[in-house]
C-alpha cells in the first residue's frame, strides 16, 4: 500500500502550480468573465505547449503516454486556478471517449490533433431541463446523419469535434457519435450561463454527418463508463477549487478585523473554516482512491468515481459559498474574486450529472459490488 503521489508527480504539481500562477492569475479569469469570449485562447495555447492535452494519449498517437495520476495532478491545479479553458471537455471527455471506444482509424484521425491542440473536443449529452436518459434522447441518427438539439454543450462555440450521445439508427438504446463541427448540418449559438468563464452553447444538428463511436446499442453503457472516468478528473478539479476557496477565506479572515481583533479568532469563523477543511480533506482522500481506480481501471472504479464526485461536489459548493460569507459584503461585490469559485463550483456540480445522480449511482454501484 502506498497512498501518496510519487516524487515526479509532486514535481509536476509544483511546475503546474507555478505555470498557472504566472499564466492564469485572477486577472485572466476576470478578463474572460467580462468579455464575450468562450475561453482564454492565449492560455489555452500555453496549456497545449505544456503538453497537458497530450498527457494520457499514447506516444504513437502523438501523446506523452503519461498515467492518469499525472492527469489528476494537472486537473487539481486547473481547478485551483479556475482556468478558463476547454480542458475538461477536450481531455476528460472527448479524448477519453476516443481512447475508450475509438477504432484505430478514428484514433489516428483525431488523437494526434487533440494532443497537439489543433482540435478542441467536447461531449454533448444534455437536451434541456432535467436528466437526459437513454429513453428520453430526442437527438436521433438516421442513415448516418444526426438530427436534434443538444443544450447546453460546454465549449460548443470553440469545439472542432463533438462526441454526441443520440438514439441510434434503427434499434434500441443509445450510441455515441463523432461529429465534425465544421459542416453545414451543424449550427451553434451561444448560451449564457452563470459562469461565463466557461463558454456554453446550443448545438443544433440538422442531418449532420456522424460516425458511430463504439458499438451501436452499447452507447449508453459506454457513456456511463466514460462519465465514471471523467468524474474522477472533474472531482480533482473540484477539490483544487475548494482548496483555493478555503485558502482565500483563511487569508481574508486573518487580515480582517472586527471588534478589535481578527475575525479568524472568532469560533463562528474558525468552525466554518474547520468544516471546509474537513470536507476538503475527505473529498481529497476519496479522490486519491478514485485516481488509483482510474489509473488501474480497477473493478472498484464505479464506486470510487461516484464517491470522489459526490464528496468533491459537496466540498466545493460548501467552500465557495462560505468563502463569500466569510468575506461579508465585499465577498458579494463584482470587484472581489470570491465569485469565481461560487460560479465554477455550481457549474461543475451539474457538468456531468448532479449530486443527486451521483449519489444514486454510488448506491447502485455498491449494490452491484455486494451482489458480485
Amino acid at each position: 500500500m502506498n497512498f501518496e503521489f510519487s516524487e515526479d508527480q509532486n514535481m509536476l504539481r509544483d511546475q503546474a502550480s507555478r505555470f498557472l500562477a504566472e499564466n492564469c492569475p485572477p486577472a485572466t479569469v476576470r478578463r474572460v468573465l467580462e468579455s464575450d469570449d468562450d475561453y482564454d485562447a492565449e492560455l489555452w495555447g500555453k496549456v497545449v505547449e505544456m503538453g497537458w492535452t497530450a498527457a494520457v494519449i499514447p506516444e504513437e498517437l502523438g501523446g506523452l503516454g503519461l498515467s492518469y495520476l499525472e492527469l489528476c495532478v494537472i486537473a487539481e491545479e486547473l481547478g485551483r486556478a479556475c482556468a478558463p479553458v476547454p480542458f475538461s471537455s477536450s481531455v476528460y471527455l472527448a479524448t477519453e471517449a476516443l481512447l475508450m471506444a475509438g477504432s484505430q482509424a478514428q484514433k489516428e484521425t483525431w488523437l494526434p490533433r487533440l494532443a497537439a491542440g489543433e482540435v478542441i473536443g467536447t461531449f454533448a449529452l444534455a437536451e434541456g431541463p432535467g436528466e437526459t436518459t437513454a429513453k428520453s434522447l430526442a437527438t436521433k441518427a438516421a442513415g448516418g446523419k444526426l438530427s436534434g438539439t443538444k443544450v447546453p454543450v460546454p465549449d460548443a462555440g470553440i469545439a472542432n469535434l463533438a462526441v454526441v450521445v443520440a438514439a441510434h439508427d434503427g434499434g434500441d438504446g443509445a450510441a455515441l457519435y463523432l461529429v465534425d463541427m465544421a459542416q453545414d448540418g451543424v449550427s451553434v449559438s451561444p448560451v449564457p450561463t452563470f459562469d461565463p468563464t466557461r463558454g456554453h452553447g446550443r448545438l443544433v444538428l440538422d442531418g449532420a454527418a456522424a460516425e458511430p463511436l463504439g458499438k451501436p446499442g452499447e452507447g449508453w453503457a459506454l457513456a456511463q463508463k466514460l462519465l465514471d472516468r471523467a468524474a474522477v478528473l472533474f472531482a480533482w478539479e473540484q477539490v483544487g477549487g475548494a482548496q483555493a476557496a478555503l485558502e482565500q477565506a483563511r487569508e481574508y479572515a486573518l487580515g480582517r478585523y472586527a471588534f478589535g481583533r481578527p475575525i479568524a479568532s472568532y469560533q463562528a469563523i474558525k468552525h466554518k473554516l474547520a468544516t471546509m477543511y474537513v470536507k476538503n480533506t475527505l473529498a481529497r482522500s476519496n479522490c486519491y482512491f478514485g485516481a488509483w481506480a482510474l489509473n488501474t481501471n480497477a473493478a472498484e472504479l464505479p464506486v470510487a468515481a461516484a464517491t470522489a464526485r459526490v464528496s468533491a461536489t459537496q466540498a466545493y459548493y460548501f467552500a465557495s459559498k462560505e468563502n463569500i460569507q466569510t468575506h461579508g459584503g465585499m465577498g458579494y461585490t463584482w470587484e472581489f474574486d470570491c465569485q469565481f469559485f461560487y460560479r465554477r463550483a455550481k457549474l461543475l456540480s451539474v457538468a456531468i450529472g448532479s449530486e443527486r445522480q451521483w449519489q444514486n449511482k454510488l448506491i447502485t454501484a455498491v449494490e452491484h459490488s455486494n451482489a458480485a
Partner: protein
Amino acid sequence: MDFNDTPEEAKFREEARAWLKDNVPKASELEGLGYIEQAKLWQKRKYDAGWACITWPKEYGGRGASAIEQVIWNQEEAKHDDLPGGVFSIGQGMAAPTLMTWADDDAKARYLPKLASGEEIWCQLFSEPAGGSDLAALRTRAVKDGDEWVINGQKIWTSGAHYSDYGILVVRTDPTVPKHKGLTYFYLDMKSPGIEIKPIKQISGDANFNEVYFTDVRIPDSQRLGEVGQGWQVSLTTLMNERASIGAGGVNVGFDSVFKLAQKVNIGDRPAIEDDSVRARLADWYCQEAGLRYTSYRTLSALSRGDIPGPENSIGKLVGAPKTQDMASFAIDLLEQSGAIWDEELSAEAGLFQGTYMSIPGLRIAGGTDEIMANIIAERVLGLPQEPRMDKGIPFNEVPTGGSKG
C-alpha cells in the same frame, strides 16, 4: 500510488490471517469468564505469539512492525467477530506512547511489556468537574513531601478506573503561576490508599465512567513524567494519541448496517433502499466513511516516513461521532414506530441502533468535544488565532471561576 498490497505486505497479511485462524479463542474457551478475563486471555495469547502491540519495539513486547502492518493486522483481526477487547485501549493507546516518550528506561522495561501482554490495565485521570474542555483549569493538588507527592482532589470521566492497575494523572503543583505552567504529570498505582472510585450512570443506563476521589494519596517522585511544571506538555502526547485512538473505532453502526436495514424494511410498499431520499443519505455517509478510511491511509504513509500523529487525527472523531449519531437516528426512523423498542430480542440487530443512539452523545464529548476538535483544526492545522482568553498570564489562583468548585 498503489492501493494493493506489496509482495511483503501480502506475505505479512497471509501470516497474520493464518495465525488468527488457528488461534482466535473459541466460544467454549471464553464461556464462564467475565469480559476482563476474556480480554486478558486473548491479549496474552497474542502477546505470547508476538501479535500484541505489533508496532512497539521487540524489547517492550511488540515486533517492530510498520504502521502499514498494523493496519493489515487490524483489518484481519476485524474479520473475526466478537473478539474480546477494549479494556486495554487506554493503556496501550495513550499511557504507553506517553511512557515511551517521557519515562526512563527502567520504567519502560517495567511497565510496557505488561501493558502489551494485558497483564496490567491502565486508566487516564485527566478531566475534573472544573476542567473539561478547559482541561488545564484542573485543580487536583499535589504537594511535595520529601521524596513523595501528596494528592488531594477529584477526577471525573475515568473509564475503567475500577478495574485498572495503574493510572496516568495530571495535577496542579503550583497554583501561583498561569494555569498551563503549574501542572505536573505522574503515573500511580490505582490500589494506593486514599483512592475512592464511584461509578457514573450514563443516559444509556451503563456505567463505563467513574469519579475518582483522592484523599492524601502518596506518589513517589520517581513516578513523575517530565519536569515539575511540564505536565501540560506531557499530557499533549497523551491527548494526541487519545484522539487518534477514539477516532479509530469503537462503534459499529455504519454504512453497512444501515444499508442492510434499508434492504429489509419497507417505505410504502417497496424496500426502503429503492427510495431516492434514503439512497442520497446513504451515499453521503458512504462518502464520509470512505473519506475517513483513505485519510487514515494517507496519514499512514506519512507515519511510515517517521512523522508523529498530528492534529489531523482530530478529523476522525469530529466526523465519525456525529455521523454515527445521525445514522442511528436514521435507522430508527426506517423502523418507524417499532424503532422505539430497545430490546435484545425484540429489536432489529439486537438493539444495535437504539443502543448506539443512547451511547453516542458521549462519544461526541469524550476526548475533546466536537467544538474543541474544530478549534484544534482551526488553530493547529489552519493556523488561525485563539480567541482572547480571560485567564491568560494570570496566576491560576486569581482566575475567575464562576463559582464552580474543583
